[in-house]
């Protein structure tokens, strides 16, 4: 167990180091959600938010969206390291196979925190009202979700190691339905029944709903619990398949 922890810490800090050395890389990747915020928010009808503010409804969605975009693409880093030979060098080291994926997935939490902080700070001057306790709990749920999503992205990278196009094809094909069906950019409540049913099967829907509740200060609610469960399920699933895929690489 102690080797698992120290191996995971080694992988985690190796992954994190380039980010710390070059923090601008995280900030540059933030431009997209900020553009979405700037161009999308004015289009939203004010009736969406519980207190009538579009920003209050939209900001949590954008927070989840930037996590979704960044984390689902993170497998491409592993794909690149598989191609250059860097991953092979990790495989030949005594690092535990589960640590190779858990350490990488855990690292995803850090840019997510930074991005959320930037989004919140950027929107407060425009009237976004921050409920700190709820937002912090929201970050915890999002962190759990992030780890699962990161592990899934790495699994996809391992599965498509011989054809890079497959990684991007699958990632791009999945990301937009997931995003739209979770009601991240537009509410699905007024959509047709089939769309609402599809949304019910999307774990991301529960995470987005929970983040909305939490960022608006609503902590003890079924919505929040639902989001927490969905995040834990995604994390468990991601780590399970990821660990198995990593073990199979050297078989």
């Amino acid at each position, binding site marked *: 167990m102690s080797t698992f922890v*120290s*191996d995971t810490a*080694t992988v985690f*800090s*190796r992954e994190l*180091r*380039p980010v710390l*050395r*070059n923090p601008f890389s995280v900030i540059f990747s933030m431009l997209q959600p900020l553009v979405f915020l700037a161009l999308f928010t004015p289009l939203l009808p004010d009736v969406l938010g519980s207190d009538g503010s579009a920003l209050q409804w939209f900001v949590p969605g954008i927070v989840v969206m930037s996590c979704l975009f960044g984390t689902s693409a993170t497998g491409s*880093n592993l794909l*690149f*390291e598989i*191609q*250059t*030979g*860097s991953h*092979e*060098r*990790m*495989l*030949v*080291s*005594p*690092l*535990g196979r589960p640590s190779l994926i858990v350490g990488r997935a855990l690292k995803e939490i850090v840019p997510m925190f930074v991005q959320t902080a930037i989004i919140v700070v950027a929107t407060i001057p425009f009237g976004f009202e921050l409920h700190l306790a709820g937002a912090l709990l929201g970050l915890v749920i999002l962190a759990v979700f992030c780890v699962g999503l990161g592990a899934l992205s790495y699994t996809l990278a391992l599965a498509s*190691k*011989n054809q890079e196009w497959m990684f991007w094809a699958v990632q791009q094909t999945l990301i937009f339905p997931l995003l739209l069906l979770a009601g991240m950019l537009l509410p699905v409540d007024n959509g047709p029944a089939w769309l609402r049913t599809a949304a019910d099967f999307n774990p991301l829907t529960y995470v987005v709903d929970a983040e909305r509740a939490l960022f608006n200060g609503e902590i003890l609610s079924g919505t929040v619990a639902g989001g927490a469960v969905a995040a834990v399920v995604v994390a468990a699933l991601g780590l399970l398949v990821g660990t198995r895929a990593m073990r199979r690489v*050297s*078989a």
Partner: protein
Amino acid sequence: MTETMIRTSGLTRHFTVKKQTVEAVRGLDLHVGKGELVALLGPNGAGKSTTLRMLTTLLRPTAGTAEVAGHDVTADPRAVRSAIGYIGQGNGAGHSQRVRDELHSQGRAYGMNAAAARTRAAELIGSLDLEAFADRVVSSLSGGQRRRLDIAMGLIHAPELLFLDEPSTGLDPQNRANLAEHVRRLRAEHGTTMVLTTHYLEEADQLAERVVVIDHGRVIADDTPERLKSAYAGDRITLRFDHDRDAARARTCVLGIADGAVTDLTGATLQVRLDGGAELAPKLLRALDDTLVPVAAVEVARPTLDDVFLNLTGRSLREEAATGSEQKLEIAA
């Protein structure tokens, strides 16, 4: 008898490519003693890299066993990994990492504490001449600089056994010489056991003390380069004359002196293949002089490992170098 470092028994690996079974390695028995410097030589697709990947735990054998540095590769891969160093065909360092950071992570991966990893990284930066770019990002390094970093990473835990997979592929002659120099120094200073794969004949010849020739997944010869050459290929003496009839007369004379020589007469040129050709050449020239056959030019060539491979398989390694691809096979697996 030296202490054992590697012992394989019936080591076998099959791949399934498009529903067909490819036997990449077929029942390989190999013994490497402590302190040996062994080259696995063979054309692309011969099974050398597959063998290396099984020995380094990157690939599970289909059948047979391999014990590396005292541990079984299947039963206790972690113990094998802790003991061995590996320098692969690609570049081991992550492109977005800095040189010093990557060495530090590498040290941590082998269980060193932070202070020990830092000290060892600094040591290797010094000994492999990485100082000038130690705090630069790997993607900004040249090919030769990256290769030196690969060596440094392979040596981070001062392994007693080091594997090098096609170490000089893609290097220019200067960096190739540089790599050979590092390999020799490691042997001299630390007595590290080394196993390398190569399809460069010169590399195997100059660097290795023992050459294991692999073809179609099997060991077809295994000895020192010198002994392989004298066992499987003789020296080649080329004699040129001014007239065809001189060459023909010379052949009769040569066969009278050198028993077992193989001669090949083309026009005014006579080729003689025989063991100990360098020693016999002066005698041959004197004899030809005595019989009044004027020799226009003489050349004595030592056999190469390519001659060895040619005599063993009927194919030339040089021709094979461009065809087939073991790498593709492994990616597909």
